[in-house]
């Protein structure tokens, strides 16, 4: 079992990377970070919330602005919830993220990357160029999933 990074260190790293962001920590049990990400120099700026609750969940939500949908889409791509703007940034079954990893080196750059591809998604009329696994996808992606699980 890899060693979990203490939330004190997570908070310290967040403060170091994003000095003007807000960090709330309850001991080693809970951490909430609210900060701003601008994925490219010409991009919009997005208010992001990262919420970790030990043993329960880690969630990344876009708090603002309200994200738009590409003309033909019924929901945002690669999210747990379009309504809550809750991003799905890694494939949980593949252990791509675990608490031994710093947020500032994983989830937060991944969130910025998600935002980058969200803008491109809108700019291409709904084509996702960020890659990833679509649970409702075609046979090929299902095979990719199967390969990852083996």
């Amino acid at each position: 079992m890899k060693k979990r990074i203490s939330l004190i260190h997570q908070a310290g790293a967040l403060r170091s990377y994003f000095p003007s962001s807000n960090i709330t920590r309850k001991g080693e049990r809970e951490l909430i970070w609210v900060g701003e990400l601008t994925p490219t120099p010409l991009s919009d700026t997005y208010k992001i919330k990262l919420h970790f609750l030990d043993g329960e969940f880690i969630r990344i939500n876009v708090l603002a602005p309200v994200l738009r949908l590409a003309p033909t889409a019924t929901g945002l791509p690669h999210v747990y919830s379009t309504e809550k703007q809750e991003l799905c940034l890694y494939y949980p079954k593949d252990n791509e993220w675990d608490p031994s990893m710093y947020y500032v080196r994983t989830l937060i750059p991944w969130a910025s990357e998600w935002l980058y591809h969200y803008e491109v998604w809108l700019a291409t009329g709904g084509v996702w160029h960020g890659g990833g696994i679509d649970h409702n996808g075609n046979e090929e992606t299902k095979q990719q999933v199967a390969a990852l699980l083996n």
Partner: protein
Amino acid sequence: MLTPEQKKQFNEIFDHLSKSLNISKERYDQAVASYQFVGDWLARPESALAPYKPEILPQGSFIFGTMIEPVDECDDLDIDLVCRLTGKNDSWTQYHLKKIVGDRLKDHGTFKRMLDKEGRRCWTLLHRDQARFHMDILPAIINEEYFVILEKAMSANRQQDFETAAIRITDKLTHNYSSSTNPDEWLKSNPFGLAAWFKLRASLALQKAMSLNEAIQPVPDNETNKLPLQCVVQILKRHRDILFKGDEQKPISIIITVLSARAYKGETDVLDALISIVNTMENFIEERYDRASGKNVKWISNPVNPEENFADKWPAEPAKQEKFFKWLECVKKDVNQVITQKGLHNIQTAMAKSFGERTVNNVFSKIGENAKAQRDGGVMKMAASTGVLGSSGRAHVGYHNNFGK
């Protein structure tokens, strides 16, 4: 005001835009193969033209490197070609030269079917098949000296040297069309001088000037590394095509090209060049007194022949002049609209209106693909405090199978 990072990103976007406007390699290769085939046919030993070593060379946007895909993929590309002859039979008038070129084309079954009705100066071959282009072939007498003069003009970059170079062409509307056998009395033209001049302007962005051989190639490069001036001309021509669609009175390409080249100051990136050109190109339109009408007229001189006015149609068709200025106002406004947006999707919306939805979607697809490749290649980083992604920054963006569901 844009930050240096924002400018850099806009340059990438406009660079991709120019690349997306290039005609496809497939179509380009077809066009080249077609005109080379015409050249070979004219030069075969049994051809009456054979003794004068006929050669087909591209001119206009093809040789400037400013050709663009039509807005509608189904529309024809125009390819302007010169049929170069070194000397001629002493008894030939313009009429003979034009007819002999036409007759030789008609000797070939396919060309005969493709040939359009005779033009004032050109023969036109229409490709009605899937290739979708037509070729205007301008018969011309070019002596060896012509290229020697151009070479000299180019290396010395002296305006007056360009002006001494000329080829002789046929023109049905000249009074001596079927009488004069002396090419010195025929209409002058200088398409390669103009191309050489344009390439010299474009190469202001480079450390060293271009040679004549680089400037005028029988098969010019299609996509490799366009210079900023070439990109700007492509972008401006596309803006015109979107604004005016099929309108016959839209600003002609040569006016956009020459004014852009005059206004260009050697900016090394597309964004700076674009902004500076749209804001200053107007200053290169002169007013000259026209004796015939007793009025001042707008004058856009041919850089290699100042007596030729590219805007010569404006006095008789004032709508053409109005539409040019309308276009210029519009392009200034639209470029400004694009560069004041935030959010790639908002930039896309502004660009799609001016440059076409399909083309601009391609631009952003490329950008998305590049971002993914950068991440997959392990070279994407995130800057602290902003979260900006790019090739520099504090945190590496590591591999992850983004994104789940």
